[in-house]
């Protein structure tokens, strides 16, 4: 399939996809038109006013937050234009030292904004499993040691 796509080229594939979409829509429409409406079915779905949603109680959420949907034409973030080339440079940088060199020219607030923007997925859609964030992170393997004087920790985690 991939070889075929390469031979035909992107424009051919787009035309074929569009034709396929039209055929599928016509077929689905015909199927809907042919199916009889159930007797007594309402025109609009009923709303059960007796069921009130109690939002005062936190809902236990076992499932992750829904992935954001890319809506064509939706407003995009108004990124500070001066940061656009910086973002491009950072995305192209392959080492931490190179990224640091790029960030040195920015103010502290600009570095924060750029860092936040870099956390966003690039233009290509991310795989479904990568969004949401509710999945437990992959397990890391800490090396647990005694905090005896010879192994005094470099820093301490504490309640602040």
């Amino acid at each position: 399939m991939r070889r075929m796509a390469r031979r035909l080229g992107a424009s051919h594939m787009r035309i074929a996809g569009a034709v396929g979409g039209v055929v599928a829509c016509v077929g689905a429409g015909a199927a809907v038109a042919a199916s009889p409406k159930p007797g007594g079915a309402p025109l609009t779905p009923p709303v059960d006013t007796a069921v009130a949603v109690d939002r005062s109680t936190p809902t236990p959420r076992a499932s992750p937050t829904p992935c954001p949907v890319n809506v064509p034409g939706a407003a995009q973030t108004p990124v500070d234009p001066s940061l656009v080339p910086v973002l491009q440079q950072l995305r192209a940088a392959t080492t931490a030292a190179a990224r640091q060199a790029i960030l040195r020219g920015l103010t502290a607030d600009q570095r924060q904004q750029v860092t936040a923007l870099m956390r966003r997925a690039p233009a290509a859609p991310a795989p479904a499993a990568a969004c949401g964030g509710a999945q437990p992170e992959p397990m890391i393997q800490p090396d647990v040691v005694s905090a005896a004087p010879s192994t005094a920790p470099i820093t301490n985690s504490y309640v602040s």
Partner: protein
Amino acid sequence: MITTPRLDSRSFTAFGGSRCSIHAVATPLDDVSACVAEVYAFEARLTRFRPDSELSRFNAAAGARVAVSPLLEELLRTCLDAHALTGGLVNAAVLPSLLAAGYDRSIEKLRRDATTARATVATGPAPALPDVLDVGDGWARLAPGCAVDLGGVGKGWLADRLAERLDNAAVNLGGDVAVQGDGPEGGGWTVGLCDRWAVALRSGGVATSGTTARRWATGHHLIDPRSGRPSQTDVLEASVVAADAATAEALGKAAILLGTCDAPRWLAEHGAAHWSLRSDGDRELRSGPA
């Protein structure tokens, strides 16, 4: 450019008087200074104790869809992630309850003005964050009457980003610690926990939550969203090691709210690599995985 020969440690105070430090190996001194500057820039933009901060203006605009900076957008999404990860136990929408509990000014002022601290007023359970917060590309909207506090999740997020950037460093922002790299001796970065043990890590985060700090005459800062009141728990402090500091912070807070019976199993199921729970004045310590 001056580069640290071995280990450079920089200590400073931020986030309402919290002790912070950045420890870095073979890093240009200017880069460490730049990180400290970023901590202050982050605090100025996102503190709830300044009415002109972006977070305060966002809370004041509850009910309207408003433009937000990439940083605030990212942190609001992180709060939604923490809510989802913890089944709603970590809920940034507890701010009205926190204010009602008396935490309506910085902790330094609260301790100083102990006589004028308000008594806890019941607000009821906090609303689930996803029900009251919408976040889009460059905008966000809070439901009318709601307000959010980024709390420790914000500190953890920032510690993670700074440690990533410095490559071989440990960043401690008020007890939320993110580490990256082999450390000064090559065996990772050692981080002390609430039970006086330590972990050595090459990558990850450690956070300690508890009710032993940020206390005032009438309450403490750890609100249980199920009741909307300062938590009643048998865990005084919980240190959690996880893949990053923001996650460790969320897990630690949830462990406090769950208590000693439920927390260990829950932590094991939610990605904690190690934890220490301190309860009842040091008489009982639990750590895991068992």
